């Protein structure tokens, strides 16, 4: 059979060494990325600018998974991007080789194993689980039954102070018009078992922090999923003030990052009340709003953070009569873009631009706390780039050696960082664009020792606001397992 490649319009794919089993591909094509747990041979391959994830499997399964991933992409699900299937592979001595599924490696994504392979705090574990719960709810809303929910089968991307999970392995999945309660509850059951297995495995590898309780972690997914599912889909009955009640419900869902696409409203038989139930719920409320206003395509929590900053900018620094779109454009060109552009080239593959912006906002908050008053954006940017960013590992195409650092709590300016000697002037310092690089405090203050650091010098500032928002509060650690309801509520 002749080699066939279906999918992406990428002629370069044909040049890859398909006549060799993936396991024997030459070292120079293989990207040094950690492999997850997989039933199949999966390797990450350098391909021009991109990194591809290639999985060897049977032709039928490859085609099935490829189509499923494409369908999910079309429906806006967070998944890896399917690129191609390769069939008809033959070794140089004429032996048939397995078909291959090619997906694009998600930039800035982190497999849980890479993050866990150093001692990991409970807060971070909890964030992974929460992200996985959101992913599972989103997939279930789209009618996707996963069949093998696990941390291994997802990838995680930083999303402001949280993580967003992406589906990686759809091999066992199925798309249905809607899922039955049985399908959802079976997925949850599999998730618990798999997460428990993954936790025990990390424990056996002696990389799980002793404070992490595997059973509690596995149970947390179940709890988070049920909470979110119920909030999104529960039926409510109102007897009065119906427009207000509906507006409240819409707002509650918006706060969670969801939009109601369709709402079922039914009068009760006696005509005394209205029963409402969201029928179509779409994730990405904030991401869509930000996209509409600025054209920025970022993840949900990042969008939420950026929008907060934009809203603040709008109320404090713009004319109340200005059009929202106009203000957004000004914010983009005078706040967001200068911040992102200030990042020296060599640090650009460390984090996504929106994530850097988020971290600068956090950093600014800490600086303001230390100074006892607001700190202008350009000072925060310069300080962040000088003191924080150089310490961060490259995450664009993971993974640098220092996993400990990657799992470090993001917003905190810890005592450790504060005690370090100042970072010397760095090459490619673009912060001069702001004109105030000399405002950068040389040593960063410790959290809690606010008075020690003097206020930044008073110079003209293009961007200054009265308030500086706090970063998101820290998460609670998982509670011991509570007795669970036996059935899923509709």
């Amino acid at each position: 059979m002749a080699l066939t490649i279906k999918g992406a319009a990428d002629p370069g794919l044909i040049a890859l060494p398909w006549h060799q089993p993936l396991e024997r591909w030459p070292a120079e094509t293989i990207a040094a990325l950690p492999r997850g747990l997989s039933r199949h041979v999966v390797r990450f391959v350098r391909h021009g600018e991109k990194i591809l994830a290639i999985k060897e499997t049977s032709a039928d399964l490859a085609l099935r998974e490829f189509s499923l991933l494409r369908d999910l992409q079309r429906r806006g699900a967070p998944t890896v991007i399917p690129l191609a299937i390769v069939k008809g592979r033959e070794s140089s001595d004429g032996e048939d080789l397995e078909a291959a599924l090619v997906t694009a490696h998600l930039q800035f994504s982190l497999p849980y194993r890479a993050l866990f392979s150093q001692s990991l705090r409970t807060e971070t574990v909890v964030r992974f689980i929460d992200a996985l719960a959101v992913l599972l709810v989103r997939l279930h809303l789209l009618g996707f039954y996963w069949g093998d929910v696990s941390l291994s089968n997802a990838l995680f991307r930083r999303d402001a102070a949280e993580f967003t999970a992406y589906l990686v392995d759809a091999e066992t999945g199925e798309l249905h018009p809607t899922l039955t309660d049985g399908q959802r509850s079976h997925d949850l059951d599999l998730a618990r078992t798999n997460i428990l297995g993954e936790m025990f495995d990390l424990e056996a590898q002696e990389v799980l922090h002793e404070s992490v309780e595997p059973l509690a972690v596995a149970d947390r997914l179940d709890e988070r999923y049920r909470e979110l599912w119920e909030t999104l889909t529960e039926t409510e009955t109102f007897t009065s003030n119906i427009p207000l009640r509906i507006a409240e419900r819409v707002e509650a869902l918006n706060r969670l990052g969801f939009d109601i696409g369709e709402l079922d409203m039914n009068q009760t038989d006696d005509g005394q009340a209205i029963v409402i139930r969201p029928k179509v719920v779409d994730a990405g409320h904030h991401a869509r709003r930000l996209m509409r206003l600025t054209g920025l395509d970022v993840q949900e929590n990042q969008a939420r953070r950026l929008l907060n900053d934009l809203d603040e900018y709008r109320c404090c620094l713009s004319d109340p009569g200005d059009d929202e779109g106009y203000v957004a454009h000004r914010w983009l060109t005078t706040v967001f873009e200068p911040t992102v552009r200030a990042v020296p080239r060599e640090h650009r593959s460390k984090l996504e631009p929106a994530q850097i912006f988020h971290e600068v906002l956090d950093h600014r908050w800490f600086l303001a706390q230390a100074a006892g008053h607001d700190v202008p954006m350009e000072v925060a940017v310069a300080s962040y780039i000088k003191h924080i960013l150089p310490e961060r590992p490259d995450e664009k195409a993971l993974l640098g050696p220092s996993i400990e650092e990657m799992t470090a709590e993001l917003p905190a300016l810890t005592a450790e960082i504060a005690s370090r000697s100042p970072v010397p002037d760095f090459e490619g310092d673009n912060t001069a664009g702001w004109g105030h690089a000399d405002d950068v405090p040389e040593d960063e203050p410790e959290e809690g020792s606010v008075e020690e650091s003097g206020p930044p010098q008073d110079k003209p500032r293009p961007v200054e606001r009265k308030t500086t928002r706090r970063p998101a509060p820290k998460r609670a650690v998982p509670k011991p397992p509570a007795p669970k309801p036996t059935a899923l509520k509709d």
Partner: protein
Amino acid sequence: MATVTYDHATRIYPGTDRPAVDQLDIKIEDGEFLVLVGPSGCGKSTSLRMLAGLEDIDEGSIWVGDRDVTRVQPKDRDIAMVFQSYALYPHMSVADNMGFALKIAGISKPEIAERVEAAAKILDLTEYLGRKPRALSGGQRQRVAMGRAIVRQPQVFLMDEPLSNLDAKLRVQTRTQIAALQRRLGTTTVYVTHDQIEALTMGDRIAVLKDGILQQIGTPREMFDFPENVFVAGFIGSPTMNIGTYQVFDGAAQVGRARIPLTRDTIAALKEEDKNTIILGFRPEALDRSTANAEGAIPIDVEAVEELGSDAYVYGSIPNEFGASEEFHFAAGEAQIIVRIDPRDVPKKGDTMWVTIRKDEQHAFSTATGERLTGATKHRRSSKKK
């Protein structure tokens, strides 16, 4: 251990009119290995998932033992889906890989150890319990995955095309292992496949489904010897049965130049709707070579000969001058007939050979309904209630 009963269980997907599974009525005995088989879209997987709790049951009910599980959540049905995932954890021992999930159920450590040892013994994994999965062969890893289901000691095992991802050789090996293991464990098992050979070799009984409707249920022998309708006749057996529609004259079917006598019962069972036609089926191995003038000798124009060593198959056609065969249902191709012959005496392509159908090895079906006309009615849907 438990029986499993589908009691007129029906699944209608939202937005569709035709049930995906229509009034399924099967009683599976305690310890039995039942195979659900049929072409894609026949409802076999849906039937299994109804039992697993993944599909709603819109009408009727499903029972495990004397417990109605129709509305019970999957994890509370005491049923294990086997081979859902092969993921083994690399840093955990084989024993831990098999037993860890029991901790969710709050089972004590000594009991987990006990169950793991028992399962390992059955799976021939005892000496590997302390090792890591990487030290195991592919087959052994698969058995560890199976062990994970066994230690749960469920009432019923469910398997949905577990071999479909394996290569041909491993498929045959694993097929034998699963069947042997099931017999040793004695756990009621429902197994879904599209492959009738898998069904025939593994099942205590086979249930053939088509378009959501149970066509026939019986032992492999019953299914093979007494198919209840044309569909089952064509589905079970490899190479497939030769099936054609023929005119009936004077108590005989006109097959090419040959007259195949029909029994008095068969003639009596024909109805007006059949319009003097009949569907006859005869397996490739139910034909004997004969001389041209033997009674009921059917001429066959040889188009190809396939020699397999122990057997040889002739692919040919029946010349058409007298009595046309209006419709053939052969896997080999339209209007083609397959004959198994002695591999030491094969005709050449282009020859004409004559065959007769062995007595009692022809199957007669109604043209109007496709149902079997005579014989073996005692097997007809033998397990159906009422």
